[in-house]
């Protein structure tokens, strides 16, 4: 199964993961991911037909609560951690040309 890891796969996963890898890092990632997937392929030995996938160990469905504000306005504190801030907003690089 690990032969699915081509250069194109690594490039595609890099886009999904929002990571920019150097040539060396890509080679390493190809090797590492190939080895891990070979190992994970061990799960193929098990017959899981008819087994319900379990995402949560307890039978918890949607958990709702009233939308009541219990804390104050934390915007000033939150903005203190921002790498860029302007007029009480997060500042980000330009996304399109005006």
């Amino acid at each position, binding site marked *: 199964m690990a032969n699915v890891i081509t250069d194109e796969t690594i490039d595609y996963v890099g886009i999904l993961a929002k990571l920019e890898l150097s040539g060396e890092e890509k080679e390493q990632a190809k090797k590492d991911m190939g080895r*891990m*997937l070979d190992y994970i392929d*061990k799960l193929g030995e098990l017959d899981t037909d008819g087994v319900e*996938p379990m995402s949560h*160990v307890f039978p918890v469905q949607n*958990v709702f609560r009233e939308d009541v504000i219990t804390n104050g306005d934390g915007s000033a504190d939150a903005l203190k951690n921002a790498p860029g801030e302007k007029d009480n907003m997060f500042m980000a690089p330009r996304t399109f040309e005006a």
Partner: protein
Amino acid sequence: MRRKPYGQKGMVVAMDILSYTAAGLAAAIKEGRTTAVEAMEAALARIDTAEKDINAYITVDREGALRAAAAAQEKIERGELTGPLAGVPAAVKDNLCTAGMRTTCASKILENFVPAFSAEAVLNLERAGAVVIGKTNMDEFAMGSTTETSAYGETRNPRNPAHVPGGSSGGSAAAVAAGECFFALGSDTGGSIRQPAGFCGVVGMKPTYGTVSRYGLIAYGSSLDQIGPLARDVTDCAVILEAIASHDGKDSTSVERTDTHFTEALVADVKGMKIGIPRDYFGEGLDPAVKDAVLAAAKRLERNGAVVEEFDLSLVEYAIPTYYTIAAAEASSNLERFDGIKYGYRAAEAGGLHEMYKKTRSEGFGAEVKRRIMLGSFVLSSGYYDAYYLKALKVKAMIKKAFDEAFAKYDVILGPVAPTTAPRLGESLSDPLKMYLGDIYTIAVNLAGLPAISVPCGQDAQGLPIGLQLIADSFQEKKLFRAAYSHETFERMEG
């Protein structure tokens, strides 16, 4: 005491204070035999002498800790602070948010992050009277088993600084073992509390999933993460868990429990208790010294009235591939929030928005974190989702069922925490897959949401601690505490 002394000669008072357990210290403060300030000064003095060898902390808030200790002492004297941990200095793993105190997750990407709020578990600790000293080192984003992937240097094992403390809560375990705090909080996604506790010779406990609120815990694998205590003995673990367990509307997976009086279960009596030993935990790869120590502990419990029996748990070798698929998938999603916009590191001179995201994340994350994000993105990608991620969720259901069947027969499952004692520094990172295999006995517990505890049960020929793991069914922490407290008591009595 098992701990190696790091105190200076002449510091008789400080040495005496540092030999207290957390519960013992709280009692001594209450009775006026010592004060919260003296205890904090003693812990800070130990930090001064030990940190150059151990590096258990990323951040120590010396002045804040002394101020908070003085405030706690005043409240204790006025009778306003009466909690079970009143005045006790504690360390907190650096993936738990602490208001006003830097929280890095041992990553460069959060090097300047100062949370505006505290994790619910930290607030609960403070309500019980504990005073936070600082934030402990860990594997970056809790991804690792050695505390060597930290961007702030590795932590060393206080029992032998040439060896790792384990991980990912290695800083918390080392701080407790070295006397740099009286107890610590850690988090456990695949063994990250139990394995470092085992390697450092302290007690570490992972509660049933949902027992402790994850609000304010920086998420790694949300369906597996759980916060728990690392402490000097089983009693402390029960006291601390009692303090931090709570139902919290801010964590939708938090469970409403009424049976959280864990200290009631501290009874040295295992008569009639059914203990199962999984044969599959004693196969290839297990260090003979670990095997002998764990089986000796089982024999001792049997001599004291427990009914001990071997059985086949099954599916053990499938737990690691299942875990790494699910944990990597959840991590790839959880760590998308680190994008250089709202907090943390932002790459300089990035062009457009997308370029900035990629540069920030590539420069901010370490190799192991990138490895898991890549794997997680792959197993969730279209075309591979069913073959990998969904398959893992099905095997998870089968593993849970295997435990259900075991707990129909046994009160507690007993085995080793890890196949070996603590490896030497630098031995593990070159081969990630080999490092992952070290999690074989701890990882299935997280997949099934079970509680488990790691208690010291001897040492190997090099003097490195060996950990005994006890596992119980969901919500059966009291059985665990009873078995662990019995082990601790009988071991002390019988040697």
